[in-house]
Protein backbone atom coordinates (compact mmCIF):
# COMPACT_ATOMS: atom_id res chain seq x y z
CA UNK A 1 0.00 0.00 0.00
CA UNK A 2 2.65 2.49 0.99
CA UNK A 3 4.65 1.60 -2.09
CA UNK A 4 1.66 2.37 -4.32
CA UNK A 5 1.22 5.83 -2.88
CA UNK A 6 4.89 6.54 -3.31
CA UNK A 7 4.90 5.55 -6.99
CA UNK A 8 1.86 7.70 -7.70
CA UNK A 9 3.54 10.69 -6.16
CA UNK A 10 6.70 10.02 -8.13
CA UNK A 11 4.73 9.87 -11.34
CA UNK A 12 3.03 13.15 -10.53
CA UNK A 13 6.39 14.72 -9.85
CA UNK A 14 7.78 13.43 -13.15
CA UNK A 15 4.70 14.66 -15.02
CA UNK A 16 5.05 18.07 -13.41
CA UNK A 17 8.58 18.18 -14.74
CA UNK A 18 7.56 16.95 -18.17
CA UNK A 19 4.86 19.53 -18.53
CA UNK A 20 7.35 22.38 -18.15
CA UNK A 21 10.10 20.90 -20.31
CA UNK A 22 8.73 19.86 -23.67
CA UNK A 23 11.50 19.36 -26.17
CA UNK A 24 9.84 20.08 -29.48
CA UNK A 25 10.54 18.29 -32.71
CA UNK A 26 9.15 20.66 -35.37
CA UNK A 27 7.87 18.60 -38.31
CA UNK A 28 7.18 21.63 -40.47
CA UNK A 29 6.00 21.21 -44.03
CA UNK A 30 3.95 24.26 -44.98
CA UNK A 31 2.84 27.82 -44.33
CA UNK A 32 1.82 27.08 -40.72
CA UNK A 33 5.56 27.12 -40.11
CA UNK A 34 5.38 30.93 -40.10
CA UNK A 35 3.03 30.80 -37.15
CA UNK A 36 5.27 28.28 -35.44
CA UNK A 37 8.16 30.72 -35.83
CA UNK A 38 5.98 33.46 -34.43
CA UNK A 39 5.11 31.33 -31.43
CA UNK A 40 8.74 30.43 -30.87
CA UNK A 41 10.00 34.00 -31.27
CA UNK A 42 10.09 36.49 -28.37
CA UNK A 43 6.75 38.19 -29.06
CA UNK A 44 4.64 35.17 -28.12
CA UNK A 45 7.53 33.29 -26.57
CA UNK A 46 6.76 29.63 -26.09
CA UNK A 47 9.64 29.65 -23.58
CA UNK A 48 7.15 30.85 -21.00
CA UNK A 49 5.81 27.29 -21.10
CA UNK A 50 9.19 25.63 -21.10
CA UNK A 51 8.96 24.42 -24.70
CA UNK A 52 11.37 26.87 -26.27
CA UNK A 53 14.07 24.45 -27.33
CA UNK A 54 13.41 22.86 -30.75
CA UNK A 55 15.55 19.77 -31.23
CA UNK A 56 16.11 18.58 -34.76
CA UNK A 57 16.69 15.00 -33.73
CA UNK A 58 13.66 12.96 -32.67
CA UNK A 59 15.92 11.12 -30.21
CA UNK A 60 16.27 14.29 -28.16
CA UNK A 61 12.64 15.39 -28.17
CA UNK A 62 9.37 14.25 -26.70
CA UNK A 63 6.85 16.64 -28.28
CA UNK A 64 6.23 16.37 -31.99
CA UNK A 65 4.56 19.37 -33.56
CA UNK A 66 3.22 18.42 -36.97
CA UNK A 67 2.93 21.80 -38.64
CA UNK A 68 1.38 21.81 -42.08
CA UNK A 69 0.03 19.54 -44.80
CA UNK A 70 1.16 15.93 -44.76
CA UNK A 71 0.99 14.18 -48.10
CA UNK A 72 0.55 10.45 -48.57
CA UNK A 73 4.08 10.27 -49.88
CA UNK A 74 5.37 11.76 -46.61
CA UNK A 75 3.38 9.35 -44.46
CA UNK A 76 6.14 6.75 -43.95
CA UNK A 77 8.64 9.49 -42.98
CA UNK A 78 6.21 10.92 -40.42
CA UNK A 79 5.63 7.49 -38.93
CA UNK A 80 9.35 6.81 -38.77
CA UNK A 81 10.14 10.08 -36.99
CA UNK A 82 7.32 9.45 -34.54
CA UNK A 83 8.62 5.97 -33.77
CA UNK A 84 12.04 7.44 -32.96
CA UNK A 85 10.78 10.01 -30.43
CA UNK A 86 11.79 9.48 -26.82
CA UNK A 87 9.11 8.07 -24.50
CA UNK A 88 6.78 9.39 -23.22
CA UNK A 89 5.94 11.16 -26.44
CA UNK A 90 3.26 13.69 -27.26
CA UNK A 91 1.90 14.94 -30.57
CA UNK A 92 0.27 18.24 -31.47
CA UNK A 93 -1.49 18.59 -34.82
CA UNK A 94 -0.87 22.22 -35.70
CA UNK A 95 -3.45 23.70 -38.09
CA UNK A 96 -6.36 22.16 -39.98
CA UNK A 97 -4.23 20.45 -42.62
CA UNK A 98 -2.43 18.36 -40.03
CA UNK A 99 -5.66 17.83 -38.07
CA UNK A 100 -8.05 16.82 -40.86
CA UNK A 101 -6.46 17.46 -44.22
CA UNK A 102 -8.08 20.91 -44.26
CA UNK A 103 -9.32 22.10 -47.60
CA UNK A 104 -7.31 19.47 -49.42
CA UNK A 105 -9.71 16.71 -50.30
CA UNK A 106 -7.78 14.95 -53.00
CA UNK A 107 -5.53 12.08 -53.98
CA UNK A 108 -2.35 13.42 -52.41
CA UNK A 109 -3.08 14.62 -48.88
CA UNK A 110 -3.53 12.51 -45.74
CA UNK A 111 -6.96 13.28 -44.23
CA UNK A 112 -5.54 14.10 -40.81
CA UNK A 113 -2.29 12.82 -39.33
CA UNK A 114 -4.25 10.74 -36.83
CA UNK A 115 -4.60 8.28 -39.69
CA UNK A 116 -0.90 7.59 -39.19
CA UNK A 117 0.06 8.51 -35.60
CA UNK A 118 -1.97 9.15 -32.44
CA UNK A 119 -2.58 12.84 -31.68
CA UNK A 120 -3.00 14.43 -28.24
CA UNK A 121 -4.04 17.97 -29.12
CA UNK A 122 -5.56 19.33 -32.30
CA UNK A 123 -5.15 23.04 -33.00
CA UNK A 124 -7.57 24.31 -35.66
CA UNK A 125 -6.98 27.37 -37.81
CA UNK A 126 -5.57 28.11 -41.22
CA UNK A 127 -3.08 28.96 -39.89
CA UNK A 128 -3.89 29.18 -36.15
CA UNK A 129 -3.17 32.37 -34.28
CA UNK A 130 -0.20 32.13 -31.91
CA UNK A 131 -2.62 32.50 -29.00
CA UNK A 132 -4.42 29.37 -30.19
CA UNK A 133 -1.14 27.51 -30.27
CA UNK A 134 -0.28 28.60 -26.75
CA UNK A 135 -3.74 27.49 -25.70
CA UNK A 136 -3.03 24.12 -27.28
CA UNK A 137 0.29 23.84 -25.49
CA UNK A 138 -1.40 24.66 -22.18
CA UNK A 139 -4.03 22.03 -22.91
CA UNK A 140 -1.29 19.49 -23.51
CA UNK A 141 0.42 20.57 -20.28
CA UNK A 142 -2.82 19.90 -18.42
CA UNK A 143 -3.16 16.49 -20.05
CA UNK A 144 0.43 15.56 -19.28
CA UNK A 145 0.20 16.72 -15.67
CA UNK A 146 -2.92 14.58 -15.19
CA UNK A 147 -1.33 11.66 -17.02
CA UNK A 148 -4.06 11.64 -19.68
CA UNK A 149 -2.00 11.85 -22.86
CA UNK A 150 -2.36 8.86 -25.16
CA UNK A 151 1.05 7.37 -24.54
CA UNK A 152 0.88 7.88 -20.77
CA UNK A 153 -2.45 6.09 -20.67
CA UNK A 154 -1.08 3.31 -22.83
CA UNK A 155 2.04 2.93 -20.69
CA UNK A 156 -0.06 2.75 -17.53
CA UNK A 157 -2.36 0.15 -19.06
CA UNK A 158 0.56 -1.95 -20.19
CA UNK A 159 2.17 -1.71 -16.73
CA UNK A 160 -1.10 -2.86 -15.15
CA UNK A 161 -1.30 -5.77 -17.56
CA UNK A 162 2.25 -6.80 -16.72
CA UNK A 163 1.48 -6.50 -13.04
CA UNK A 164 -1.65 -8.66 -13.28
CA UNK A 165 0.25 -11.27 -15.28
CA UNK A 166 2.93 -11.31 -12.59
CA UNK A 167 0.30 -12.06 -9.94
Amino acid at each position, binding site marked *: MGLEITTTKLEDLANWGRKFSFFTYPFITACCGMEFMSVAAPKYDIARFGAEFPRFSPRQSDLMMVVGTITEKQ*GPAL*KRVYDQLAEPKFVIAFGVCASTGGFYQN*YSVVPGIDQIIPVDVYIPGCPPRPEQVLDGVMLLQKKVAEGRSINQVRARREALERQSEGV
Partner: protein
Amino acid sequence: MSQAVLDALKSKFGDAILSAESKHRDESITVAPAKLVEVCTFLRDDDKMAFDSPVFLTCTDRLGLPDETHRFEVVVQLRSVSKRHRIRIKVPLEEGKLKVPTLSGLWAGFNWLERETYDMYGVEFEGHPDMRRIYLYEEFEGFPLRKDFPKDRRFPLARREWTDE
Protein backbone atom coordinates in the same frame (compact mmCIF):
# COMPACT_ATOMS: atom_id res chain seq x y z
CA MET B 1 2.13 39.38 -82.10
CA SER B 2 3.65 36.44 -83.89
CA GLN B 3 1.44 36.27 -86.95
CA ALA B 4 4.64 35.86 -88.96
CA VAL B 5 5.24 32.52 -87.25
CA LEU B 6 1.77 31.31 -88.13
CA ASP B 7 2.21 32.38 -91.76
CA ALA B 8 5.58 30.68 -92.04
CA LEU B 9 4.23 27.45 -90.52
CA LYS B 10 1.22 27.45 -92.84
CA SER B 11 3.26 28.02 -95.96
CA LYS B 12 5.85 25.40 -95.00
CA PHE B 13 3.65 22.61 -93.65
CA GLY B 14 0.30 23.31 -95.30
CA ASP B 15 -2.26 20.68 -94.35
CA ALA B 16 -0.13 19.32 -91.51
CA ILE B 17 -1.27 22.36 -89.50
CA LEU B 18 -4.78 21.15 -88.69
CA SER B 19 -5.91 24.56 -87.52
CA ALA B 20 -4.43 27.88 -86.51
CA GLU B 21 -5.93 30.67 -84.49
CA SER B 22 -4.94 34.02 -83.14
CA LYS B 23 -6.86 35.07 -80.09
CA HIS B 24 -6.10 37.60 -77.36
CA ARG B 25 -2.71 38.20 -78.95
CA ASP B 26 -1.87 34.55 -78.50
CA GLU B 27 -1.16 32.37 -81.51
CA SER B 28 -1.81 28.67 -81.40
CA ILE B 29 -1.76 25.83 -83.89
CA THR B 30 -3.06 22.28 -83.84
CA VAL B 31 -0.82 19.50 -85.09
CA ALA B 32 -1.29 15.75 -85.35
CA PRO B 33 1.07 13.70 -83.11
CA ALA B 34 2.89 12.27 -86.13
CA LYS B 35 3.92 15.74 -87.34
CA LEU B 36 4.85 17.22 -83.97
CA VAL B 37 8.58 16.59 -83.98
CA GLU B 38 8.96 17.80 -87.56
CA VAL B 39 7.17 21.07 -86.80
CA CYS B 40 9.07 21.59 -83.55
CA THR B 41 12.44 20.92 -85.16
CA PHE B 42 11.67 23.64 -87.69
CA LEU B 43 10.57 26.02 -84.94
CA ARG B 44 13.76 25.49 -83.02
CA ASP B 45 16.32 25.46 -85.84
CA ASP B 46 15.02 28.00 -88.35
CA ASP B 47 16.78 31.35 -88.02
CA LYS B 48 13.55 33.34 -88.27
CA MET B 49 11.77 31.15 -85.71
CA ALA B 50 14.55 30.50 -83.15
CA PHE B 51 12.31 29.13 -80.40
CA ASP B 52 14.96 28.60 -77.77
CA SER B 53 12.87 28.52 -74.61
CA PRO B 54 10.55 25.63 -73.62
CA VAL B 55 7.97 27.37 -71.44
CA PHE B 56 5.61 24.58 -70.47
CA LEU B 57 4.20 21.27 -71.60
CA THR B 58 1.01 19.92 -70.16
CA CYS B 59 -2.25 18.26 -71.03
CA THR B 60 -5.92 19.15 -70.84
CA ASP B 61 -8.73 16.71 -70.17
CA ARG B 62 -11.70 17.83 -72.27
CA LEU B 63 -14.17 15.35 -70.81
CA GLY B 64 -17.66 16.82 -70.79
CA LEU B 65 -16.84 19.96 -72.73
CA PRO B 66 -19.53 20.92 -75.26
CA ASP B 67 -17.07 20.65 -78.15
CA GLU B 68 -15.48 17.41 -77.01
CA THR B 69 -14.27 15.91 -80.26
CA HIS B 70 -11.27 14.33 -78.59
CA ARG B 71 -10.63 13.54 -74.95
CA PHE B 72 -7.08 14.77 -74.33
CA GLU B 73 -4.97 17.51 -75.76
CA VAL B 74 -1.25 17.93 -75.09
CA VAL B 75 -0.35 21.62 -75.01
CA VAL B 76 3.15 22.95 -75.62
CA GLN B 77 4.13 26.57 -75.16
CA LEU B 78 7.31 27.86 -76.78
CA ARG B 79 9.00 31.20 -76.64
CA SER B 80 11.86 32.78 -78.49
CA VAL B 81 13.88 35.04 -76.26
CA SER B 82 15.93 36.45 -79.15
CA LYS B 83 12.98 37.05 -81.55
CA ARG B 84 10.52 37.95 -78.80
CA HIS B 85 7.63 35.86 -80.04
CA ARG B 86 5.78 32.87 -78.76
CA ILE B 87 3.49 30.12 -79.95
CA ARG B 88 1.28 27.43 -78.49
CA ILE B 89 1.03 23.99 -80.05
CA LYS B 90 -1.92 21.70 -79.35
CA VAL B 91 -1.82 17.99 -80.09
CA PRO B 92 -5.25 16.28 -80.03
CA LEU B 93 -5.28 12.68 -78.78
CA GLU B 94 -7.92 9.99 -79.02
CA GLU B 95 -8.70 8.03 -75.89
CA GLY B 96 -6.91 4.68 -76.03
CA LYS B 97 -4.13 6.09 -78.17
CA LEU B 98 -2.41 8.39 -75.68
CA LYS B 99 0.99 8.44 -77.31
CA VAL B 100 3.00 11.46 -78.37
CA PRO B 101 6.58 11.56 -79.64
CA THR B 102 8.90 13.12 -77.06
CA LEU B 103 10.21 16.66 -77.33
CA SER B 104 12.88 16.13 -74.70
CA GLY B 105 15.38 15.51 -77.49
CA LEU B 106 14.80 19.00 -78.84
CA TRP B 107 14.53 20.89 -75.54
CA ALA B 108 15.98 19.08 -72.53
CA GLY B 109 13.74 21.20 -70.30
CA PHE B 110 10.71 19.20 -71.42
CA ASN B 111 12.10 16.01 -69.88
CA TRP B 112 10.55 16.44 -66.43
CA LEU B 113 7.44 18.18 -67.78
CA GLU B 114 6.70 15.16 -69.94
CA ARG B 115 7.13 12.93 -66.92
CA GLU B 116 4.73 15.14 -64.98
CA THR B 117 2.18 14.96 -67.80
CA TYR B 118 2.51 11.18 -67.80
CA ASP B 119 2.17 11.14 -64.01
CA MET B 120 -1.04 13.16 -63.95
CA TYR B 121 -2.77 12.23 -67.23
CA GLY B 122 -1.20 8.98 -68.41
CA VAL B 123 -0.02 10.33 -71.74
CA GLU B 124 3.03 8.38 -72.84
CA PHE B 125 5.87 10.12 -74.61
CA GLU B 126 7.54 7.79 -77.08
CA GLY B 127 11.32 7.95 -77.11
CA HIS B 128 11.56 9.63 -73.70
CA PRO B 129 14.72 8.44 -71.92
CA ASP B 130 13.05 7.88 -68.52
CA MET B 131 9.29 7.53 -68.84
CA ARG B 132 8.06 6.96 -65.28
CA ARG B 133 6.22 8.81 -62.53
CA ILE B 134 7.88 11.94 -61.15
CA TYR B 135 5.72 13.23 -58.24
CA LEU B 136 3.71 10.21 -57.20
CA TYR B 137 4.94 6.88 -55.94
CA GLU B 138 5.03 3.51 -57.63
CA GLU B 139 2.11 2.17 -55.58
CA PHE B 140 -0.23 4.82 -56.98
CA GLU B 141 -2.69 3.48 -59.54
CA GLY B 142 -4.37 5.66 -62.14
CA PHE B 143 -3.86 9.25 -63.15
CA PRO B 144 -5.25 11.79 -60.68
CA LEU B 145 -5.80 14.85 -62.87
CA ARG B 146 -8.10 13.02 -65.25
CA LYS B 147 -11.61 14.28 -64.76
CA ASP B 148 -13.00 10.80 -64.15
CA PHE B 149 -10.59 10.14 -61.26
CA PRO B 150 -12.69 9.94 -58.04
CA LYS B 151 -11.66 12.69 -55.64
CA ASP B 152 -11.72 10.42 -52.59
CA ARG B 153 -9.57 7.64 -54.02
CA ARG B 154 -6.30 7.31 -52.13
CA PHE B 155 -3.36 4.97 -52.11
CA PRO B 156 -1.97 5.25 -48.57
CA LEU B 157 1.60 4.29 -47.82
CA ALA B 158 1.28 4.46 -44.04
CA ARG B 159 -1.74 3.98 -41.76
CA ARG B 160 -1.89 3.10 -38.09
CA GLU B 161 -4.06 0.50 -36.49
CA TRP B 162 -6.78 2.24 -34.51
CA THR B 163 -7.05 1.34 -30.86
CA ASP B 164 -9.60 2.30 -28.22
CA GLU B 165 -7.73 5.31 -26.83
